[in-house]
């Protein structure tokens, strides 16, 4: 297990390193960073001064490590359009994204797992096919389009639900559903196949042969043992929310990190997007590493692979 975790930790550091090199490299590919801050009325003196301030007079690798050191201490530079520290903008957006992702994740478990169990237990019946249909649709409907259709239907036409911003619990309903559907489809499929595998095993057949009641077989013997793959993979799915939150926040004007990223793209604000990308990458690899630890703890067999 230790070897596995060390290996994963190494991967994590490597990913962070590669992404930081990429961001730094692209920043330099863009040309002299002074162009981003100064206008055509800049004097020669100001130009040179800014070069010293930004550390452009030093060798490239020194510049990189200075930049990385600053980034790790929370200094992500100044955004171009808003002229305020990038770290500040990011910090301000974290809660909204976190709430949305957490709510959608819980939704996907609440919907996906029971439907998966039901689908496995009632295999081959209408219930099974309805469950699988729910999963099929969830994985084929484009989230960005689903969001728009829901807004059209429930906000514009029926006027039941609010469509933008984030003010009360009602504002959560549509974003959470849009973000959670495809994930709950994945949860359903995982739960279903894990459950089917266990239901097919010898000890379940033996329990049935010994006359244990059907509900006891399913909920006491089968369900508990089939929970391992869904539990471990559900955390992996949490990390995969990254793309989804960007789309959903964009559609529902949700004031989170994903929307910040799209704003940065639309305004061509390189320092801002670099900061968001670095932060998101760090959060992502850290989350994945935590998942690996959980995985190793829940399923000790991992040490053999």
């Amino acid at each position, binding site marked *: 297990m230790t070897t596995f975790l060390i*290996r994963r930790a190494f*991967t*994590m550091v*490597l*990913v962070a390193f*590669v*992404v930081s090199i*990429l*961001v730094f490299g*692209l*920043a330099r*590919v*863009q040309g002299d960073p002074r162009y981003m801050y100064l206008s055509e009325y800049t004097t020669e003196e100001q130009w040179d001064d800014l070069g010293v301030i930004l550390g452009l007079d030093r060798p490239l690798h020194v510049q990189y490590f200075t930049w990385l050191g600053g980034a790790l201490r929370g200094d992500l530079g100044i955004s171009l359009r808003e002229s305020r520290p990038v770290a500040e903008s990011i910090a301000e957006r974290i809660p909204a994204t976190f709430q949305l992702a957490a709510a959608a994740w819980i939704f996907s478990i609440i919907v996906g797992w029971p439907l998966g169990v039901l689908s496995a*237990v*009632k*295999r*081959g*019946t*209408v219930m099974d*096919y*309805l469950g*699988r*249909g729910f999963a*099929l649709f969830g*994985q*084929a*409907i*484009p*989230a*960005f*389009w*689903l969001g*728009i259709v829901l*807004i*059209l239907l429930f906000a514009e036409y029926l006027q039941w639900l609010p469509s933008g911003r984030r003010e009360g619990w009602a504002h959560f309903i549509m974003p959470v559903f849009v973000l959670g559907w495809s994930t709950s489809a994945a949860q359903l*499929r995982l739960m279903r*196949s894990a459950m089917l595998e266990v*239901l*097919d095993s010898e000890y*379940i*057949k033996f329990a049935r042969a010994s006359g244990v009641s*059907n509900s006891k077989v399913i909920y006491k013997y089968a369900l508990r043992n089939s929970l391992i793959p869904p539990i471990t993979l559900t955390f992996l799915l949490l990390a995969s929310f*990254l*793309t989804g939150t960007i*789309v959903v926040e*964009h*559609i529902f004007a949700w004031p989170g990190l994903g929307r910040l990223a*799209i704003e*940065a*793209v*639309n305004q*061509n*604000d390189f320092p801002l*997007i670099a900061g*968001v*990308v670095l932060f*998101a*990458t760090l959060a*992502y690899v850290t989350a*994945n590493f935590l998942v690996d630890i959980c995985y190793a703890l829940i399923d000790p067999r991992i040490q053999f692979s």
Partner: protein
Amino acid sequence: MDQTSIQPKDFEDVIAPTQNWVVKVFQFFRRWPILPALVIVTLVVVAIFAPLISPHSPNSANLLSRLAPPAWAEGGSQTNLLGADQQGRDLLSRLIHGARISLIVVTASLWIGMIAGTALGLVAGYFGKWSDEIIMRLIDVWLAVPFIMIVLVLVVAIGQSFPLLVGVLGASTWAGFTRQVRGLTLSLKQADYVALARVAGASDVRIMIKHILPHTISIILVLTSLQAGSLILAEGTLSFLGLGVPPPTPSWGSIVADGRSYLATAWWVSLFPGIAIFLVVMAFNFAGDWVRDRLDPRLRQI
């Protein structure tokens, strides 16, 4: 009645558990994917003959028909069958040309991912040792990279473009090919006929291409068909976010984005491209499952 008794897996297809029509329809299309095939064939034909089929040019703006509704809706006319967008461009023509873009992007990125991934998988599986170690670690690192973030920073740094879109989508697919091909190569290289080929003096490259690669074709085909749907979806998402093909080239995702500001008055602009994406993704997913069941039933999920 006890509905939950377990049917032995081997008899799954022989015993029909219920005679319900929902089940029957589902099973019928699982065995004979007529609708998915129809959708895919339509997509391909429309994409190839786009300039001949489309009633108007996809980019010619006509302010007179600005936000014109579909032909059957109130105020609609035969000139714009599915209506027109905010610049008066014919929606049907844009959808038809959008099909072309989707198909080109998906085909190109699948070829990139397939060739690169298969080559790496062959090398890793055949040579083993350090080359295997390097390639497998590379996959670990690659799969741990938050993909969308890379796309975002690339788009801001070098601008959105067609090659960039194809490149990033292609890069998102290679790892799957490498893993599967490597696994298969590992077992194939132990086979007697490979040893005989080596005794007969065949070079490593020849053994890989002539003796191992042909056996991996079916798994490559399965992976390709399974990934086509998710690539269409990914292309749509990136285009919707303004990270795909630059405007005014019509792409389904970007047409949905165009219509977003006019939802209350012109719902058709956003609605139709989304339906197109949904149908095509669904068709590819069904077709992918079908190809997998036919070529490599071991990959089938229960």
